[in-house]
C-alpha cells in the first residue's frame, strides 16, 4: 500500500494528527457500541452492557494514546516516502525531457555553461588576487609589507632603522632576484629571494624537510653558504632527491649548500613562485655590490614587519614613520613628506596595486553581464518551451495535478538543466582555463585555474542559482494558464509574453554595453600600441650576456665587439648593435657639465641619462635623426670626442639655440669637450607614458665602463625568437667567461605595460562576442516560434494578397523593433556608465560616437542574420496548407 504515493488521500484515509485521532475514536466507538448491542441482544440491560464492553476492551485512554502514536509514526513515514517518490518522479520527468529533446538541453547547457564558466574563472582570479595571502604564513594579517614614501623597494639601512620599533615583533627584508643556476652550457635561470636572517622566523612557515635559514647562516662567507629550496624546485630540478640536504648548488657565482626544503606551496611573502631562498649577507654582494649594507641610494629590498598582537596598523605606521624620519635627519633626503606605510601582503590591496587588478574587477563585472544574458536567454528558451507545452500542461491540470507538483516538475527540470550547464562550464573551464591563465596572469604566478574544489563548488552554485532563476519565470507562467483556451486551441499557442520581449530587450541592452566596452578597449590598445616610442621595438631581439666577476672591462668590451661580428653574419639578422643600457629596463647617468651653464637644470624624470652605443644602434632601434649626423665607425678611440643628444636635452640646455657644435664635458668639468654632432628624436626610456626623457648618446668606442649593462640589440627580418638559439650558440663559443646569455624579444619588456589594455580588449571582445552569439540564438528561437505560432495569421494575410516581401518585412520588423529598443536603452545606459571607466582607457573618449555606432551596427547585423531565416520561412508559408491544417 505504501508503494504508491498519495493513495491514502485517494481512498480518503486519515492523515494529519486531528484526522487520525478522529478515525481512531470512530473505530473504537464502533467496536464498543457493537459489543454493547450484542450484549443487549443477549439480554443484558444497556447500562451494564456498555460497562461490560468497556471492561472487555481494557484501559481505553491508554489504548487510544498508543494507537495514535503508532498511526502518527506511520503517517509521518508515508509523507516522507510520498515526497521522495514525487522528487524521484520529477527528476525522472526532467531526464526524460532531456532525452526527448537533446538539442534543447545542449543549447541550454552551452548557454548556461558559457555564462557560468566565465564567471567561475573570473571569481577564481579575483579571489586569488584580492583575498589569498601568500600561503603558509602564520597569522598572515599581522605581517605587513613596509612601503617607504609609497614604494615597496627600499634598502637595508632604511629597513634596519625600524628594528627599534616597539610595535613590531619582527623586522625582515628580502629581494626577489633572477640568478643563474648551474654552470656552462646547461646554465638556466631561477627565481631566488635573498632574505635577511629573520625572514623564516618572522613568517613562521613550516618546512617540508631540513631547517629554515637562521641568523647563524648569515655570518658565513659566501662560499659554503646555506640555501633553502622550494618544494617545487626540489621536485622539478632536483628530482625529488631524498638526500638533498647537504647537496651543493651553483647559483649565480656562489655555491650554496641545501639545508632545507620549504613546505609545498610556500612562496615567501610574494604571490609569485620562488625557487630558492639565499641568505642576504651571502648573496647581496653579488647582486647589489659591496656597499649594500650602508648605502641609502639603492632601492632593491622589500621590508617586512610583523605587528605585535593588539597593535594596529596605524600605530605601527606612525611609529615607523617617526623612526624613519629621525634616521634620515640631516641627509639630503631629510624632508617631512617621508612616511612609512604598512601594507597587506596581498599586492592588489596595497599601494602597489597593479593597473590590471582594476581591470579584473571590471572584467568580473562584465562576466556577470554575460551570465545575466545567458540566464535571460535560458529563461526565454524555457518560456518558449512552456508555451509549446501549454496544451499538455492544461491537460495535466485538468486531470487534477496540483500546481505545486507542476512547479516542482519545472524546478526539477531547471535543476537538471542547471547541472548540465555546470558540467558544460567545467568542461569549458578545463579547456579555456589555460587560455585565461596565459592571458591574465604573470607566467610566474602561483595561481592555477584548475578543477579544484572551490571552482567546482562555485560553478555548481552559480549554475543552480542561474538555472533556477531562469526556470522561475516559466514556472510562474505555466502554473496559471487559461485552461479552457489552451485546451481548445491546437498545438503551439499563446501570445509572446511581455516578459519574453523584456528578456530580449535586456539581452540587446547588455550586449551593447559589452560591445561598446570591447570597442573602447580595442581603440585604447590601438592608441597605446600606436604611441610613437621614438623607436621601433618589434623585430628586435635583446641579448644580455652575464659576465663572470673575473672578467675585466677590457675583455668584456672585446667580447662585445667580437660578438657583433659573429651575430652580424647569422641568417635573418638585419642589423646588430651594442648598447650600455636597455630601454624599459635600465638607464644610467654620470656627471655632466656644460661650459656656459652654472648647473644642469634637473629634469623631472631624472637624468640627463647617457648611453654608450655602437654606430649601428640608430638603425637597429629604428630611431630617427632630427638634425646633424649620427656616429660613424670613424668616431673611435683617438678621434675627436663626439656626442648625439635628444631633442628634449637640446631644448633643456640650449633653448632657442642651435645645439649642434656645442661642447659637453661628459664625466665632469675636468673632462675634455665632446662635440654635439647630432640631435635625435627622444625614444622612451622606462614608461610608455613618460614625458620626454632628457638623454644623450656617446660612441661605445670612445667611452665604455663596466657600470653599463651591456646588451646586444639584433634587428631581425623574421620573428625575433627564431634567432635566440643561433645567437646563443654563436656567443657561447666566443668566451668562457660569459656565464649566461639571456635572449628575449625587446617587445617582451613593453608587453607588461600594455597588459591592462590587451587584457581589457581581449576579454571585452571575447565576452561581447559570446553575448552577441547568445543573444542572436535567443532572437532566432523566439522568431522561429513566432512564425510557427502565427502561421495561420500569415496564411490569411498571404491568401488576402500580401506579398512574400510584405510578410518578410512584417516578421523581421517585429524582431528588429525589439532589438532596436534594446540598442537605444543600451546606448543610453553605456553613455551613463562608461565615464566611470575612463581611467582604464587611453586615447579614446568613453563616449566616442564611432564606437557606439559600430556596436549598434554589429548588433543590428547580428539581429538581421538571426531573424532572416525565420522571416524567409514565414514568407514562404503556403496559405492552402496552413489554413487547412486548422
Amino acid at each position, binding site marked *: 500500500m505504501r508503494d504508491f504515493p498519495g493513495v491514502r488521500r485517494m481512498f480518503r484515509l486519515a492523515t494529519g494528527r486531528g484526522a487520525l485521532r478522529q478515525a481512531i475514536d470512530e473505530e473504537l466507538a464502533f*467496536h464498543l*457500541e457493537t459489543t454493547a448491542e450484542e450484549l443487549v441482544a443477549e439480554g443484558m440491560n444497556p447500562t451494564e452492557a456498555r460497562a461490560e464492553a468497556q471492561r*472487555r*476492551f481494557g484501559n481505553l485512554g491508554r489504548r487510544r494514546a498508543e494507537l495514535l502514536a503508532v498511526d502518527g509514526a506511520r503517517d509521518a513515514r508515508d509523507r516522507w516516502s510520498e515526497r521522495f517518490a514525487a522528487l524521484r518522479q520529477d527528476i525522472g520527468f526532467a531526464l526524460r525531457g532531456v532525452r526527448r529533446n537533446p538539442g534543447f538541453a545542449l543549447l541550454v547547457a552551452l548557454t548556461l555553461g558559457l555564462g557560468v564558466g566565465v564567471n567561475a574563472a573570473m571569481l577564481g582570479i579575483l579571489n586569488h588576487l584580492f583575498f589569498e595571502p601568500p600561503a603558509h604564513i602564520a597569522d598572515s594579517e599581522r605581517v605587513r609589507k613596509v612601503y617607504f614614501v609609497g614604494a615597496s623597494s627600499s634598502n637595508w639601512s632604511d629597513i634596519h632603522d625600524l628594528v627599534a620599533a616597539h610595535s613590531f615583533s619582527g623586522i625582515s627584508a628580502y629581494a626577489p632576484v633572477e640568478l643563474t643556476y648551474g654552470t656552462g652550457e646547461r646554465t638556466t635561470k631561477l627565481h631566488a629571494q635573498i632574505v635577511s636572517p629573520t625572514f623564516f622566523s618572522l613568517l613562521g612557515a613550516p618546512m617540508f624537510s631540513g631547517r629554515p635559514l637562521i641568523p647563524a647562516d648569515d655570518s658565513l662567507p659566501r662560499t659554503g653558504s646555506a640555501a633553502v629550496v622550494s618544494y617545487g624546485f626540489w621536485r622539478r630540478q632536483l628530482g625529488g632527491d631524498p638526500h638533498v640536504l647537504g647537496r651543493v648548488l651553483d647559483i649565480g657565482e656562489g655555491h650554496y649548500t641545501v639545508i632545507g626544503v620549504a613546505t609545498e606551496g610556500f612562496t615567501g611573502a610574494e604571490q609569485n613562485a620562488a625557487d630558492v631562498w639565499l641568505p642576504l649577507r651571502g648573496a647581496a654582494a653579488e647582486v647589489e655590490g659591496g656597499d649594500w649594507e650602508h648605502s641609502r641610494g639603492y632601492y632593491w629590498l622589500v621590508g617586512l614587519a610583523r605587528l605585535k598582537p593588539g597593535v594596529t596598523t596605524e600605530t605601527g605606521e606612525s611609529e615607523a614613520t617617526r623612526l624613519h624620519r629621525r634616521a634620515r635627519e640631516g641627509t639630503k633626503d631629510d624632508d617631512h613628506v617621508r612616511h612609512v606605510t604598512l601594507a597587506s601582503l596581498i599586492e592588489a590591496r596595497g599601494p602597489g596595486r597593479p593597473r590590471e587588478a582594476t581591470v579584473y574587477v571590471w572584467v568580473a563585472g562584465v562576466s556577470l553581464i554575460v551570465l545575466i544574458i545567458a540566464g535571460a536567454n535560458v529563461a526565454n528558451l524555457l518560456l518558449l518551451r512552456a508555451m509549446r507545452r501549454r496544451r499538455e500542461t492544461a491537460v495535466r491540470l485538468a486531470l487534477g495535478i496540483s500546481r505545486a507538483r507542476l512547479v516542482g516538475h519545472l524546478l526539477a527540470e531547471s535543476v537538471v538543466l542547471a547541472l548540465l550547464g555546470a558540467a558544460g562550464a567545467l568542461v569549458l573551464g578545463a579547456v579555456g582555463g589555460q587560455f585565461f591563465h596565459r592571458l591574465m596572469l604573470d607566467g610566474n604566478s602561483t595561481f592555477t585555474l584548475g578543477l579544484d574544489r572551490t571552482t567546482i563548488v562555485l560553478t555548481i552554485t552559480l549554475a543552480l542559482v542561474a538555472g533556477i532563476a531562469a526556470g522561475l519565470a516559466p514556472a510562474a507562467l505555466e502554473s496559471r494558464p487559461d485552461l479552457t483556451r489552451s485546451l481548445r486551441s491546437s498545438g503551439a499557442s499563446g501570445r509572446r509574453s511581455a516578459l519574453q520581449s523584456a528578456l530580449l530587450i535586456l539581452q540587446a541592452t547588455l550586449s551593447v554595453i559589452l560591445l561598446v566596452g570591447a570597442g573602447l578597449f580595442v581603440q585604447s590598445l590601438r592608441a597605446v600600441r600606436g604611441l610613437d616610442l621614438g623607436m621601433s621595438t618589434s623585430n628586435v631581439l635583446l641579448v644580455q650576456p652575464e659576465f663572470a666577476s673575473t672578467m675585466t672591462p677590457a675583455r668584456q668590451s672585446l667580447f662585445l665587439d667580437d660578438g657583433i661580428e659573429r651575430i652580424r653574419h647569422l641568417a635573418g639578422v638585419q642589423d646588430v648593435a651594442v648598447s650600455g643600457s636597455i630601454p624599459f629596463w635600465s638607464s644610467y647617468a654620470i656627471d655632466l657639465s656644460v661650459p656656459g651653464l652654472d648647473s644642469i637644470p634637473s629634469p623631472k624624470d631624472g637624468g640627463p641619462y647617457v648611453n654608450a652605443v655602437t654606430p649601428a644602434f640608430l638603425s637597429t632601434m629604428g630611431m630617427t635623426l632630427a638634425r646633424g649626423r649620427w656616429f660613424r665607425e670613424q668616431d673611435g678611440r683617438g678621434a675627436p670626442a663626439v656626442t648625439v643628444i635628444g631633442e628634449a636635452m637640446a631644448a633643456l640646455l640650449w633653448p632657442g639655440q642651435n645645439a649642434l657644435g656645442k661642447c659637453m664635458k661628459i664625466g665632469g668639468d675636468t673632462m675634455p669637450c665632446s662635440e654635439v654632432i647630432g640631435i635625435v628624436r627622444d625614444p622612451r626610456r622606462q614608461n610608455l607614458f613618460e614625458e620626454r626623457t632628457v638623454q644623450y648618446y656617446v660612441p661605445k668606442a670612445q667611452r665604455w665602463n663596466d657600470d653599463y649593462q651591456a646588451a646586444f640589440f639584433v634587428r631581425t627580418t623574421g620573428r625575433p625568437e627564431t634567432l635566440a638559439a643561433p645567437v646563443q650558440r654563436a656567443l657561447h663559443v666566443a668566451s668562457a667567461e660569459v656565464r649566461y646569455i639571456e635572449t628575449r624579444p625587446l617587445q617582451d619588456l613593453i608587453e607588461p605595460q600594455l597588459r591592462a589594455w590587451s587584457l581589457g580588449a581581449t576579454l571585452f571582445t571575447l565576452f561581447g562576442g559570446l553575448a552577441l552569439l547568445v543573444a542572436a540564438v535567443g532572437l532566432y528561437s523566439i522568431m522561429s516560434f513566432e512564425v510557427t505560432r502565427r502561421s495561420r495569421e500569415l496564411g490569411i494575410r498571404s491568401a488576402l494578397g500580401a506579398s512574400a516581401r510584405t510578410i518578410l518585412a512584417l516578421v523581421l520588423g517585429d524582431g528588429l523593433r525589439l532589438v532596436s529598443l534594446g540598442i537605444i536603452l543600451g546606448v543610453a545606459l553605456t553613455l551613463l556608465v562608461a565615464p566611470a571607466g575612463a581611467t582604464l582607457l587611453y586615447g579614446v573618449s568613453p563616449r566616442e560616437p564611432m564606437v557606439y555606432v559600430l556596436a549598434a551596427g554589429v548588433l543590428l547585423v547580428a539581429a538581421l542574420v538571426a531573424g532572416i531565416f525565420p522571416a524567409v520561412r514565414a514568407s514562404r508559408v503556403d496559405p492552402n496548407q496552413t489554413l487547412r491544417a486548422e
Partner: protein
Amino acid sequence: MNAPDLELLQGTLDVLVLKALVFGPRHGYAVARWIRQAADESLQIEEGALYTALHRMEKRGWLGATWGLSENNRRAKYYQLTAQGRKQLEQRTRLWTSYAEAVFKVLRAAEDSA
C-alpha cells in the same frame, strides 16, 4: 511478567489476528469475535490489545485498511491482508507449530521419565 514473555504474547496475538483476516476483510470487532469463537472462549484477550496489533501491522504494511459499511449499516474500518501479511502469516504459523510441537515433545518426555 518479564520482556521475553511479553514478546511471545504479542507475537501470538499478531498471528491470531492475521489468521482471522485470511477469510477476507474484517473490522476490528469481527476479528475479536472470530478469535473468541475459534478458541471456544478459552483465550482471554484484552480487546484493546487487538487494536494495537491491528494498527501496528498496518504500519508495517502487513495489513491494508479501508472504511466501509458494517452489517448494522455503520461506518467501520476494515482490515485486509496484504501480500506481505499473507507471507508473515505462513511464516509465523510454521514457526508456531514447530515451537508448540517441540514444547509438547519435551513435556511428554518429562512425563515418561517421571
